[in-house]
């Protein structure tokens, strides 16, 4: 444990030394901070309507103005970050866990199972993500859970494939062969020996995947197929902003900039993490 903690420290130091990585770290830090302490940061209740002061531009009272219902845009942006992370984190970690399990099974298990799982991965991948999301939403109705499920399902193959490749390479490495010859159980080999070697690579993938997930959540909410109103979400802000685009630019700006900022932050962080954790991965992308 002590060792892995110091390794984590090393990684963070490595990322912070890289200018892009430091930028990513700061942006992501700010977003996470705002999401956790959203309740204390927001100047107004993000869903409280105030019809008298609707569609205002930025002012001292409302930093980013108000929407068509008089809700404070800045408060909705901050609260929207919380929703974005609420979708992105469980979806990414869920996809990572399932992908990892399936990928290791595919890589370590019998050939027919491998083929079957690969076919499964390819099938999911061949659905254009948004089309798949739309189809599912159309079927089971829009909600936060639906979005998490859709996002998770579409990114399982990415993790599964990488976990499989890593397992396949490790499978014939000397230390695994030695363990096997000493009669170690499959669970022990996979859990104790392979997992630590695969998880780092997947964590990098996850960091790079979070922007995609945030964008997808926002996209679905923008189409009115994501989280339900009046829940504040960046996508919902964009949806309102789109319909009012000729009246006020502030809703589109307020919804769009945090998405771009968040994707930038996580991408910088992911890129930098990848260089620190595994320079070889650079080629695979």
């Amino acid at each position, binding site marked *: 444990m002590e060792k892995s903690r110091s390794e984590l420290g090393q990684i963070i130091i490595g990322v912070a030394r890289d200018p892009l990585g430091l930028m990513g770290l700061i942006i992501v830090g700010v977003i996470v901070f705002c999401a956790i302490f959203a309740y204390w940061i927001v100047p107004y209740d993000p869903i409280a309507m105030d019809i008298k002061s609707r569609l205002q531009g930025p002012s001292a009272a409302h930093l980013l103005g108000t929407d068509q219902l008089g809700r404070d845009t800045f408060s909705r942006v901050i609260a929207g970050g919380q929703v974005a992370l609420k979708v992105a984190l469980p979806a990414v970690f869920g996809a990572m866990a399932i992908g990892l399990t399936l990928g290791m099974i595919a890589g370590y298990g019998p050939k027919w199972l491998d083929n079957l799982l690969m*076919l499964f991965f390819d099938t999911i991948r*061949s659905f254009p993500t*948004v089309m798949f999301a739309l189809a599912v939403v159309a079927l089971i109705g829009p909600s936060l859970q639906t979005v998490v499920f859709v996002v998770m399902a579409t990114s399982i193959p990415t993790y599964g494939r990488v976990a499989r490749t890593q397992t396949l390479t490790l499978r014939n490495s000397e230390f695994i062969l030695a363990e096997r010859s000493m009669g170690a159980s499959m669970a022990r080999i996979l859990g104790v020996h392979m997992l630590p070697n695969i998880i780092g690579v997947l964590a990098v993938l996850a960091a790079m995947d979070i*922007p995609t997930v945030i*964008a997808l959540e926002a996209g679905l909410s923008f189409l009115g197929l994501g989280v339900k109103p009046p829940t504040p979400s960046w996508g919902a802000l*964009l949806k309102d902003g789109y319909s009012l685009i000729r009246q006020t630019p502030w809703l589109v*700006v307020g919804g769009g900039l945090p998405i771009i900022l968040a994707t930038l932050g996580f991408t910088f962080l992911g890129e930098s993490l990848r260089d620190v954790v595994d320079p070889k991965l650079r080629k695979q992308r």
Partner: protein
Amino acid sequence: MLSFATRRFGLSLLILFVAVTVMFLMIRAVPGDPVQIMLGPRATPELQAQLTAALGLDQPIWKQLLIFYGNLLQGDLGTDVFSGRSVTDIVFQQLPFTLELIFASILWSASLGIALGAYAAAHPNTLIDRIAAAISVSFVAAPAFVVALLALLVFAVHLQWFPAIGAGEGFWDRLDHLVLPAFAIGLSWVGYIARLVRASMLEVMGESHVRTARAFGIAERRVVMVYALRIAILPVVTVIGVGMGFLLSSAVFAEIVFARPGLGKLVIDSITTRNYPIVMGSVLISTALFVVSTALADLINALLDPRARTAH
């Protein structure tokens, strides 16, 4: 010669088959009677029975599936619940708009990306290379629909340089209408392709055949542009082929934002009206498009790379 491509194509068809089946079963597995959802709570029982029969929903599930496959093989994707028109017709009427948009997006972003990547590779670790790299990363991160909205806001609503909605009539007008959506979709690809080309170009430039070309005094321009670039762009073809799903997703959003006709608009409109046959048909066609484009990328690769024709 094409056995590799045919095998890939066969696999693609298998994937398509599985995808279609999963889709079909998913629709059927949804809790609640689709007919009731489609017609709404006020529909008469007669009307419901009529629609149930029309959709073949009174048959056992395996039979429905077989009928569905049979129709599919004949190019029949079913009938629109409301207008009674063939879904195939409706989908194929919208498809060209989407394809036009995807093609335009890829054309500009790949040209610029390849040029940027090749330039960066020819001048590695210079200031320009670093700036290009930073811009590339930032571009990769930009989600298409956000870019589309911001572009709409700035270039259509405020500056009014380009039209905000529709697909236009006639060549120049259509091109004018393509600029902003294609810009939004292609932006993230510029950075992605530039990085890809830079990396693969640097690798190719280090290979010994490039040294041979130089040792024969072939002009550096020709060495870079013909001897190295032709090999370095091969992965771009594959990436675009595989990225078709991603492109389609972006196109859906761009079509909504710019109120353009196309598959995306069709799907969203049918979802809001619970028009399942059309949703199903559009998803199917777009999945097929993805499968076909992957196979197509393989074929193009085989044309560009003589080694791929005999390999595998």
